[in-house]
């Protein structure tokens, strides 16, 4: 399997962010509400939510959902 330069760069970026332990999409969904409230309150992200922050950097779908959630919450 040959990758284009663009795909290779994307993959290398993902590899750089790859950790020995990562939160999954299910973990992210379970903690996303708490993470969003912490984020919107401008508070420091606690250690317990760091893995969620990392997951959002690497998972485009969770990131998209998170951004939309923030948009909706700002309207509350």
């Amino acid at each position, binding site marked *: 399997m040959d990758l284009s330069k663009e795909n290779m760069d994307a993959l290398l970026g993902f*590899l750089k962010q790859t950790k020995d332990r990562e939160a999954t999409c299910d973990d992210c969904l379970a903690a996303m*509400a708490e993470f969003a409230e912490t984020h919107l309150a401008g508070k420091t992200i606690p250690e317990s939510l760091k893995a969620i922050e990392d997951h959002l950097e690497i998972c485009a779908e969770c990131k998209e959902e998170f951004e939309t959630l923030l948009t909706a919450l700002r309207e509350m």
Partner: protein
Amino acid sequence: MAVETDWIERLTGESSARDAALADLRELLRGKLRHAFASSGDDFIEDITQDALLKIHSQLDAFEGRSKFTTWALTIAVRVGYTELRRLRWKDVSLEQVTENSASVDAGRVDSQNEPAASAARKQLVEAVHAIIDEDLTQKQRDVLKAELAGMPQEEIGRRLGMNRNAIYKLTYDARRKLKKELERRGFSQEDLSTD
């Protein structure tokens, strides 16, 4: 409108309280989803509001009180919305189309032709990544990786493979870890993975 602490009590209470709470929650979600998915039509908003309500009601046990109830409910509703949106967007595309298309773009090319201006170090890295992908990943990991790099959402890849999104995430996570470990074994460091 119910105050925050009442939601679970009302949603699990006797029928008239429950129905009223569901109506309140429906109204709240509908308004938020309309804003969140502003480019989608009313039918879409109605459908996902209904689906989200059912989902939220069926998993009230999963609410741990780590956020406001309404924030938690909205999180689930947004995911329901995107699940449907992604399904609609990708419904006519097969996994084979995605993996074959991205293969044909590169068919017959060798690495140095893909990146004629690359440094020697970059060429070594690219070669190693390709070799590890071919030698150490499973066919399924290769297919999923290729589909993801082509932009197909994990949910949609999973739908075509009979797996859920979480399982797809774990599959590519294992593939990434394998790649990274093998690159380290071959002498590449974290810094070598920089793309510039």
